[in-house]
């Protein structure tokens, strides 16, 4: 049964990765309501499958149509599309699939070995450490935001506030509910995410009258030849390591991994001028990295209960809704969840490898469904899905409200990911902060006197000051430009 969900997850993930305009977060949020009718383990397996499946799918459109299926595949457009134009779409797609498989599998192995000992270490964490770590996660995410950091931090502050709406656990006072009963339990994660990512994206696409132009290519010879393999070997290895470790960092994730991998490959190459004209290293490295990041990203979630990025934040929210307590005890208390998820990831990666290559033709056909027909279906899915959560029409309204908010946010260039992360972390951060202050009898020094917390706090300070330094500013602007060109 779980195999079935794994399959569905990776299938949908690839589909979502292929479709421009729908990312894994949107897809996971769309499918979140459906997962509540099945067991938590199956649900997590499926959602995880969507995540890394999307990393596979995103490369398909990047290579074929020069439109990244999603942010982590932006870099693949650079050389992948060029390879396609030279008639080498097949090897590009092939090495992308294989690299993704290797990266994903290696990172799962890493996850398997690193997670349990990390969980043990995490038991030493007290409220101050948790607070500092969560703050770090938020700050890293905003640091890596492509836009202005203050604006991203603003969204984090707002998300934090949203997370606190509802009944306060410690004192049982309802906060900011304005007598709306459906807010008593807080602003639900699902309506917010579906609105912010799903509905708003549809609105923007409808407004822009998106047209998809796909050129017909015969894709023959999907297998990369021996030279391709030799050229790609080191990029794949480097990509796996880069992706895995960057994925672990809160705020890191697939996007950053792919950019860093591209940069590293260019530096390591003997022919850096080939990059941008169809160098296979420029495809192999980043694609491996973005899949490796997915494995790494699970580590903070499963060991510390802290999401490393917006996708993990959703999974965290889902775990909480299922009644599982994420944190160091998760592996001990629910080993079936951990090992079930890990095993499914292996299988999922394998499925994806098999799925991607033959099914490319089908993905291309789906890309051709005209948007005027596609978007009502997407919206419908959102509406009914959200309703099915709690049989609450109010939540549909909430989703539409955040759809509007998300639409405006994108117009005015505010990032949604910090908001989501803060929304999920908000209640936990508040608890950690309050407990820390009670422990220390009101002194803020507790965050700086305990060694682990001090270390983390210093990194936070560094990240806040770093953007002000001129050369860091330049680097961030370069990355921002690359992302904007998508």
């Amino acid at each position: 049964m779980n195999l079935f969900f794994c399959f569905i997850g990776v299938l949908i993930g690839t589909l979502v990765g292929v479709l421009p305009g729908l990312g894994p977060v949107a897809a996971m949020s769309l499918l979140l309501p459906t997962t509540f009718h099945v067991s938590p383990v199956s649900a997590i397996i499926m959602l995880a499958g969507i995540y890394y499946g999307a990393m596979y799918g995103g490369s398909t459109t990047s290579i074929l149509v020069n439109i990244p299926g999603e942010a982590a595949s932006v870099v693949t457009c650079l050389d992948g599309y060029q390879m396609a134009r030279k008639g080498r779409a097949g090897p590009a797609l092939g090495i992308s699939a294989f690299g993704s498989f290797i990266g994903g599998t290696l990172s799962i192995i890493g996850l398997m070995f690193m997670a349990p000992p990390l969980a043990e270490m995490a038991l030493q964490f007290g409220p101050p450490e948790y607070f500092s770590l969560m703050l770090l996660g938020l700050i890293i995410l905003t640091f890596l935001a492509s836009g202005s950091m203050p604006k991203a931090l603003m969204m984090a502050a707002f998300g934090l506030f949203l997370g606190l709406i509802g009944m306060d656990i410690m004192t049982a006072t309802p906060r900011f509910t304005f007598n709306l009963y459906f807010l008593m339990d807080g602003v639900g994660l699902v309506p917010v995410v579906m609105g912010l990512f799903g509905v708003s994206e549809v609105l923007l696409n409808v407004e822009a009258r998106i047209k998809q132009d796909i050129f017909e290519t015969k894709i023959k010879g999907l297998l990369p030849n021996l030279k391709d393999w030799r050229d790609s070997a080191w990029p794949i290895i480097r990509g796996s390591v880069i992706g895995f470790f960057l994925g672990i960092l809160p705020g890191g994730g697939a996007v950053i991994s792919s950019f860093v991998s591209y940069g590293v490959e260019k530096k390591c190459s003997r022919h850096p001028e080939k990059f941008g004209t169809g160098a296979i290293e420029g495809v192999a490295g980043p694609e491996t990295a973005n899949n490796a990041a997915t494995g790494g990203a699970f580590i903070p979630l499963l060991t510390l209960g802290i999401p490393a990025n917006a996708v993990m934040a959703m999974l965290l929210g889902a775990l909480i809704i299922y009644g599982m307590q994420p944190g160091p005890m998760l592996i001990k208390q629910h080993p079936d969840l951990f090992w079930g998820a890990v095993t499914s990831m292996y299988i999922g990666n394998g499925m994806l490898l098999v799925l991607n290559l033959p099914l490319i033709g089908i993905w291309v056909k789906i890309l051709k469904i005209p948007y005027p027909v596609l978007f009502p279906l997407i919206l419908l899915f959102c509406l009914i899905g959200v309703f099915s959560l709690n049989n609450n029409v109010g939540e549909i309204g909430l989703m539409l409200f955040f759809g509007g908010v998300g639409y405006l946010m994108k117009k005015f260039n505010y990032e949604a990911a910090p908001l989501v992360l803060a929304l999920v972390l908000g209640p936990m951060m508040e608890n950690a902060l309050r407990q820390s202050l009670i422990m220390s009898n009101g002194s803020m020094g507790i965050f700086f006197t305990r060694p682990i917390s001090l270390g983390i706090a210093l990194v936070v300070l560094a990240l806040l000051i770093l953007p002000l330094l001129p050369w860091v500013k330049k680097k961030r602007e370069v990355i921002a430009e690359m992302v904007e060109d998508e």
Partner: protein
Amino acid sequence: MKNNDQRSSLFWLAIGLAIALYSVKYGLGKFSSPGPGFVPFLSGLALAGLALVVFLQQLSKGSREKLKDLWVQKNWPSIMMVMAALVLYTLLFRFLGFLLATFLLTAFLLRVMEPLSWKKVLAGAIGAAIGSYAIFQLWLEAQLPAGFLGF
């Protein structure tokens, strides 16, 4: 006002201040025992403070732009129609019942971007209503409302 970042940051400044002020009424408590309003107050203050930073940043280096530039060459009447349809759907959902409401909404939406033939629209709407019923009610066992017509 120079550009859109300034306009939006003023908006957020107001929101942040509103949050902070409203939080006071929940009780800030003391540092040694923070009250329910403590963290919301901080978040509102942070929001307002950051918004101010953005506003001031734009004074020196921001570029000039008009508000309506954001909507240049965009099909914004469609957006209004889509949102209106979605809101209407939400309000009438229980009254009309799932099947009828979904049918009407899909039919309307299918014609929003490009005028499709009425046959296709009808087929699509019926297909969507029945298909989603099958997925959500029959397979996933959600509980979708029947409307005043009884289905």
